[in-house]
């Protein structure tokens, strides 16, 4: 074996290890979560944990029901997607189909910049602008609501949705559009009758990945959703999300207490949700090819 071969062999294996590392880390994280989190089910049954309506983790005995937190996370996320999906897809259509080259460049870098803004900054801006606006517009007792969270998170989901939807639109064969135009369709008809349906699986993947981005967001929601662990009945109520709960309470939870285990169990729930979202997004992305 020559020196060259040895070098080649080593590099190949190094790359292989790097490739496997991420999977290895995910497995380690999952094992750690399970080890710390499952212990909570010695004090509360899985059903009471998932569907309990009260979250008073530091009382004696603690009430560890996370249904309000799950619903809070889902509500804020759903709101964010409802807001960002039409705007994001419209933006992607404009960039992919209509905008002249120069505008396209400006728009794309603008969207990248939006993605680069730290979430705490968005949260802070939301706190001093959107929170008081929501309060006055809807005549609410407080502006710290699920809606406020959804609006700010929509800004965070937008870059993901725009860039993936735009990719999906680009990957449609040119012949589709040309065929539609040749049959006498207008540009708009070609877009919404041919291009958007053809790109639908990519757009769905964009939505799923946007959802993944939003549901894991912590700082901004913690600052602007009010964090009341109450089952939400409307967008205009305060909510507490899974992520904000972990972030707000982890500092004080005594290691080895029920509270500590419960926070890790919330971590497991978040892991399962993200896993499910990513798998669905993958399915949509692969369906396209």
């Amino acid at each position, binding site marked *: 074996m020559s020196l060259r071969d040895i070098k080649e062999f080593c590099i190949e294996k190094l790359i292989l290890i790097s490739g496997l590392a991420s999977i290895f880390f995910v497995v380690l994280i999952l094992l750690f979560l399970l080890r710390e989190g499952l212990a909570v089910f010695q004090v509360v049954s899985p059903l009471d944990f998932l569907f309990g309506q*009260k979250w*008073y*983790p*530091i*009382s004696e005995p603690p009430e560890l029901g996370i249904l*309000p937190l799950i619903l809070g996370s889902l509500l804020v996320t759903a709101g964010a997607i409802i807001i960002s999906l039409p705007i994001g897809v419209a933006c992607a259509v404009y960039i992919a189909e209509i905008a002249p080259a120069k505008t396209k460049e400006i728009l794309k870098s603008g969207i990248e910049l939006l993605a680069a803004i730290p979430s705490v900054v968005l949260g802070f801006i939301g706190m001093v602008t959107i929170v*008081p606006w929501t*309060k006055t517009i809807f005549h609410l*007792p*407080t502006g*710290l609501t699920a809606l406020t969270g959804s609006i700010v998170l929509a800004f965070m989901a937008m870059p993901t949705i725009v860039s993936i939807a735009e990719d999906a639109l680009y990957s449609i064969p040119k012949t589709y559009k040309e065929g539609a135009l040749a049959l006498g369709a207008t540009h708009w008809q070609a877009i919404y009758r041919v291009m958007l349906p053809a790109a639908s699986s990519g757009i769905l993947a964009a939505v799923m990945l946007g959802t993944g981005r939003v549901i894991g967001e912590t700082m901004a929601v*913690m*600052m602007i959703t*009010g*964090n*009341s*662990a*109450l089952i939400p009945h409307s967008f205009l109520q*305060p909510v*507490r999300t899974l992520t904000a709960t972990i972030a*707000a*309470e982890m*500092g*004080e*939870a*005594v*290691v080895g207490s029920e509270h500590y285990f419960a926070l890790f169990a919330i971590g497991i729930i978040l892991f399962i949700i993200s896993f499910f979202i990513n798998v669905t997004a993958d399915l949509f992305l692969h369906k396209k090819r």
Partner: protein
Amino acid sequence: MKRFLLCAVLTVAAFSMDSSARDNFVQIKGSDTMVNLVQSWAEKYMEINPTEFIAVTGGGSGTGISALIGGMCDIAASSREIKNKEIALAAKKGIAPKEYKVALDGLAVIVSPKNTVDKLTMDQLAQIFSGKITNWKDVGGTDAQIVILSREVNSGTHVYFKEHVLRKGDASSKEEFAQTALMLSSSQAIADEVAQNPDAIGYFGMGYVSAKQKPVLVAKDASSPYEAPTLENVTKGIYPISRPLLMYTPGEPKGTVKKFLDFALSPEGQKIVVETDFVPIK
């Protein structure tokens, strides 16, 4: 050989430095409420005793006490009393925590200056914060929904308020903050929200009160006088929501730990208490 000798000398030096450093080094951990106060004490103390070193970290009262039990700190700062459960846990490890009352803190209940309500009884406070009274008109205000603001559960202030206002000091009580209460992550966040929301009510250490918030006068019960959260009223013990700020040592303090506690309780130390907006014990 020379090199070996040098190594040996260095090692011995390192060891001897370590053991002498241990006597001069004090680790204080605990309450976030107290962290500014303790830090100010430590700075002043180290100015007077430059060879000694005091390290102060926050994390919360519970964190401090569990560090004390685990032997990870020399003094635990706490804004609540040690629980029986924790004393038992410490006893198992052969530690008998000794308590020092180092300062007092009055909790102000605050509303917006635009709010017409300016006095409440302890019972009314308990009912408001546990969600039984939900409208300002029931306590003499305008017809508007009350917005409850609370600190997060990691705060000693949250725990103190729950145990002494909501549960009125009754250990068997199951009273909780209303589920509708907004949980804010800092005293500053509560101050900001109260400043801009005329229907909000919150609580925090009296040092945080500014012109943008109005502290409510509080009475022990309907027949007692309403008192303001002022330095004087807390010292006299007539303001109903005040709490001791405590320090715990594992057993009888000695050396630097004792000197530091003596300093904190000295007139000079208590002057720092006033400067950091708390109430001196004497």
